[in-house]
């Protein structure tokens, strides 16, 4: 019989009195991705799920907080039977030259102590599997034996995505553009436990339905990790038109971004979210200079998280590939940032100047209209 052993971040075990809360949330999140048909047992810093398939393991592996998943074989608390399984597991592995056995004796009535179990199982493996050596310091593989209600044996540990349980840190609003950076930024914050609500700015008829579909697809890819994502589609045409008609050309982008942030903050208020998340990377484009970031932030009460601010495109792309958003992000549909790009945007905007330029706009009305016509889409993990 098999089961799945789930190891989770040591950070969770260090949460003192709140440890229960984090563990329970992790269980809830795992259940959300694998369904309710399984028994999940918590025990001394790990969890056991009463089934194992590769598909199931991949889902659990992608749950934030999980650092490793292994297929554990269960047998009676009998040294010969344990040895048999350990030998069989070692025979299946390729390119392994050294190993060690690590044992844990939860059931203190078991006659052998941990070290004795390890020594004996190790000897059995050495006798029965050719070409192996023991290396207790730097082994290729660790054979784990745990004696509890039954004996559990596992070798290969699949790496989990780590982080903190999704939703454990509160809620944030992600400005999702359709590019490479913003999904990565969302992923990184979700990994720290922040629940994501997305906002996408749609400028119909200047952007196509396909650009919106692309963003929905990106949200769906994030939902592989988060379970689901709520996406606000903000009608942005009126705001953009007003800015383009009434403001200076070289200030279009910066003013537009100030509006995006303020719309996102309204969404955050509605959602009881306490932060905004953007995919800005310092100096990447004109609107991502330090001055621009200061100017886009100035009207906001809540913090703006920019998890990729210190990363370059290569580093961001690497994560995008890992979380499978890259191929979608590079589809060539225009988003609202790529239309009406001024020829020479201001790279060092001054707050007082921008504020003065903005006076011609009826901000309350524009933002209220945008909020009133918001489309809300609930996107589930369709994996």
């Amino acid at each position, binding site marked *: 019989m098999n089961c799945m052993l789930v190891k989770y971040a040591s950070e969770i075990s260090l949460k003192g009195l709140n440890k229960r809360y984090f563990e329970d949330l992790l269980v809830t999140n795992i259940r959300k991705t694998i369904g309710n048909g399984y028994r999940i047992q918590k025990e001394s810093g790990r969890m056991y799920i009463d089934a194992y398939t590769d598909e199931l393991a991949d889902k659990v592996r992608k749950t934030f907080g999980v650092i490793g998943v292994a297929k554990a074989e269960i047998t009676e608390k009998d040294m010969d039977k344990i040895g048999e399984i350990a030998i069989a597991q070692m025979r299946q592995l390729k390119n392994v030259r050294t190993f060690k056995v690590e044992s844990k004796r939860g059931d203190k009535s078991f006659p052998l102590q941990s070290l004795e179990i390890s020594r004996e199982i190790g000897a059995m493996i050495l006798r029965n599997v050719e070409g192996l050596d023991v290396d207790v310091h730097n082994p290729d593989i660790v054979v784990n034996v745990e004696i509890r209600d039954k004996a559990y044996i596992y070798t290969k540990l699949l790496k989990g995505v780590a982080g903190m349980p999704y939703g454990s840190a509160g809620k944030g609003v992600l400005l999702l553009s359709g590019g490479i950076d913003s999904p990565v930024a969302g992923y990184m914050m979700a990994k720290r436990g922040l629940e994501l609500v997305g906002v996408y700015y749609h400028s*119909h*008829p*200047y*952007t*196509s*339905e396909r650009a919106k579909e692309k963003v929905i697809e990106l949200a769906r890819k994030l939902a592989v990790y988060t379970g689901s994502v709520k996406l606000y589609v903000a009608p942005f045409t009126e705001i953009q*038109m007003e800015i*383009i*008609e009434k403001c200076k*050309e070289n200030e279009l982008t910066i003013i537009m971004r100030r509006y995006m942030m303020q719309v996102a903050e309204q969404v955050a208020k509605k959602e009881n979210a306490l932060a905004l998340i953007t995919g800005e990377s310092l100096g990447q484009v004109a609107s991502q200079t330090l001055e621009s970031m200061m100017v886009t932030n100035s009207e906001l009460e809540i913090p703006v998280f920019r998890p990729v601010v210190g990363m370059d495109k290569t580093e961001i792309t690497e994560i995008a590939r890992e979380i499978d958003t890259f191929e979608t992000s590079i589809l*060539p*549909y*225009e988003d609202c940032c790529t239309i*009406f790009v001024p020829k020479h945007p201001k790279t060092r905007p001054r707050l007082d100047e921008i504020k003065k330029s903005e006076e011609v706009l009826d901000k309350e009305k524009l933002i209220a209209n945008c909020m009133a016509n918001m489309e809300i889409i609930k996107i589930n993990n369709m994996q």
Partner: protein
Amino acid sequence: MNLVYLDNSATTKPHKEVIVEVADCLEHFFANPSSAHRLGVEAEKKLKSAREKIAAFIKSKPQEIIFTSGGSEANNMAVLGLVSKGDHIITSKIEHPSVIKLLQDMEKDSYEVTYLDVDCDGVVDLEQLKSAIKENTKLISVMYVNNEIGSIQPVQEIVSIVRENSRKAKVHVDAVQAFGKLRINVKELGADMVSISAHKIHGPKGVGALYIREGLRLRPLIAGGGQEFDIRSGTENLPGISGFGIAVEMLALDFEEKQQYIRELKQHFIEGLKNFDKIRINSPIDDKHIDNILNVSFEGVRGEVMLHALEDYSIYVSTGSACSAKKGAHKNYVLPALGLSTAQAEGAIRFSFSFMNTIEEIDYTMDAVKKILPVLRRITK
């Protein structure tokens, strides 16, 4: 207004009769036409009947019709099935991607290709054609009607020029956009191969045909069970083929009346456009031009933006051709070949009509354009 579909050159809405036929074949004639049993024989009869209908319509023999998966496959088959390395092929600069992209790839692989220029009306230069024909010229492939602006090529003249100047060169005509709009009589046309497609004439998608003049032998692109006279193996798409047959049958009913009606729609549309300023009709408006396609540039408005704005009124059109809708994937090459500037080409909208459209729909579209234009032209930055 429910839905105004003015994108009939991209594809058409199938006839009710076609839908019924396709469903009927799926349900009742599911047997393999090659099977020896009675069910197989019944399916084969269906296949034969569709082939005969199409042959009769274009005045060919049934055995000269090879069913394919559509226009693109028919075009690929005509080119790849005929030529060998070292051969010279002549085509135009405004062909469909299924010809032009294929030939561009083949050029890298010891084939020689000449791309004929077109004039501002999108018609090939016949003098240039004449001088391009060489000793090793094996194929001249031209489209009968251009899919983006609707210009008609003088195919019969092209065929005579080829016959006068070469004994071995063959002529392939991509008639996908012409089929169902112009009367096609393959004997009068004189071409060696002609491609047609079902979904442009209110038939099902995924089915087309290549007419191959009797006596001309092509190398098969798909090896297998020897269906379609050993030229195109693979179990026949009977529901599609039979639906194609019905669509052709429907086409033959009131053919001239339908064409006349579409001409009136176009005239009405052109009249309506006169109410707007700063508009350029990119299609030639004369007998060198098909009636169901009208390509128009609205100055100061990007075609893509116009397209999305029209969507708000449930009016569906194309920018350039449907295949170039994916930006970046295929850069539009047809309009620049006619001498349009980048701004004019980017502002181009293709309206394409069918007998299913109405005068009311045209009026409704004009009203929509009237409302949209000033709004979109507000922004000229």
